[in-house]
């Protein structure tokens, strides 16, 4: 099989830079990382200098994600040799145990880190991940809430908690978590849109109006967010069709829905231009918009 550098015609520097980008953006493209990093380490280890240690860490986690215990073990040994007694390496050892489903041993590993350093957030979060892996969602939620009382600024944790609440159908609490995230990240269109989806799911006129507002906000922040566009259309349509609204509100929402429908049509026509295979999708959207309009009036 051809090497990565041959297949994509890249130099070792480009591969190293790509790995750095993936690291910084926190991408979980583990199979790719393993392919690129394995070759980099095998062929060019001497040129990497001190970068090699962080690459070992990155590829070890990716290897665990792909069930490549052989590779993960090798990386772990190298890191243990270079950084004996390091808590960061200890945590990686714990993650390997998790990947092998040896949850009790992994838990003990993290407990020993926390004994030395009770503020070690990584170890605390790994313990919560173990609960999640075992399907113990209610326990994970409880632990994560306790964690957030101490580390209230941890965005990743707030988002994880909102996901857990969504899976437990506790939409009120999920909304609360997303509100925290929107407060600290007011320009992030994805949080707005997710919040709107949760509100829509909760249902009821008040929540629908909120959801419409936040779909609109998401669109303001990113006018190409298709979910937000569809969401705006659907929430406005439902509000307009509700018997509980007065004529003025109904009129306004019919206008919003019409605007959204127009934008959707344009987006699909632009996308469908030239590709035969998209004709199916374009037609489906057109018919759907038509059928929803009929129910609205």
């Amino acid at each position: 099989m051809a090497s990565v550098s041959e297949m994509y015609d890249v130099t070792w520097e480009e591969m190293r830079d790509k790995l750095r980008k993936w690291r910084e953006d926190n991408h979980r493209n583990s199979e790719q990382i393993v392919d690129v990093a394995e070759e980099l380490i095998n062929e060019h280890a001497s040129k990497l200098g001190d970068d090699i240690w962080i690459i070992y860490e990155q590829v070890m986690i990716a290897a665990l994600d792909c069930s490549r215990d052989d590779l993960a073990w090798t990386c772990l040994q190298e890191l243990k040799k270079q950084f004996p007694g390091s808590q960061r390496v200890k945590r990686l050892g714990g993650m390997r145990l998790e990947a092998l489903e040896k949850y009790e041993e992994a838990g003990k590993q993290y407990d020993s880190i926390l004994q030395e350093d009770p503020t070690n957030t990584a170890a605390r979060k790994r313990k919560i991940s173990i609960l999640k892996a075992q399907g113990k969602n209610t326990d994970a939620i409880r632990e994560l809430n306790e964690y957030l009382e101490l580390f209230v600024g941890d965005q990743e944790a707030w988002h994880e908690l909102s996901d857990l609440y969504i899976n437990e159908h506790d939409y009120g609490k999920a909304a609360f978590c997303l509100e925290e995230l929107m407060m600290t990240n007011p320009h992030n269109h994805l949080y707005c849109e997710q919040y709107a989806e949760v509100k829509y799911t909760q249902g009821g006129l008040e929540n629908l109006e909120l959801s419409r507002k936040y779909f609109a906000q998401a669109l303001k922040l990113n006018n190409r967010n298709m979910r937000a566009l569809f969401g705006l259309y659907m929430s406005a349509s439902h509000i307009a069709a509700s018997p509980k609204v007065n004529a003025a509100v109904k009129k306004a929402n019919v206008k919003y829905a019409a605007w959204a429908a127009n934008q959707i049509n344009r987006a699909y026509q632009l996308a469908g231009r030239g590709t035969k295979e998209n004709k199916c999708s374009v037609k489906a959207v057109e018919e759907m918009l038509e059928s929803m309009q009929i129910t609205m009036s």
Partner: protein
Amino acid sequence: MGEVELSCLAYVKMYLHACLFPRCSVNGLLLSSSPAGGAVCVTDCVPLLHSHLPLAPITQLALTQVDVWCAQTQQRIVGYYQANACVSDCSPTPCALKIADKIAEQCNNAVLLMIDGGKMSPDYRVPPIVMYERKDSRWTLKDKHTIMLRQWEETREIAGQLLDSGDHSLLVDFDSHLDDITRDWTNQKLNAKIAELASPANV
């Protein structure tokens, strides 16, 4: 209740959908191009979501769009499938039951299919699926002997081949379509590839 037949195309796409997003729960709709009445023949499937399955707006949107497409192509929605992120538990979640209920309103011998992640290893011999049918307003486990996969060996081969060649990344689910609307959630390209592998010339 009656027999259910699962076509190669439907199985392979469902399987590839689960493989494409191993860390997420995924779901999708099962379609039939056969007329109603008699055995249920699942001839195709549409992969829907790989994130936030319980949230309503995108699910509603997808159901409406697939409904419209089915009317255009003489197909019916006859079931729902889901693969849970947590491999150790393949029981239907509340959102799976809800969507399946909705489908059963329109199709009285609808099926609910859960993919058993624990049985998806490379050496599995039996289809890693568990099927439920509606009996007395509850979803009950279906007798394995009423579920048919014609040419199971070939189907398994094809799924394996596409996975090895990396072609599973060709699969587009509704979520991916919303990220980039030029991508086709009816998966015409992948369908053609599967048909090619399944044709008598290749078997």
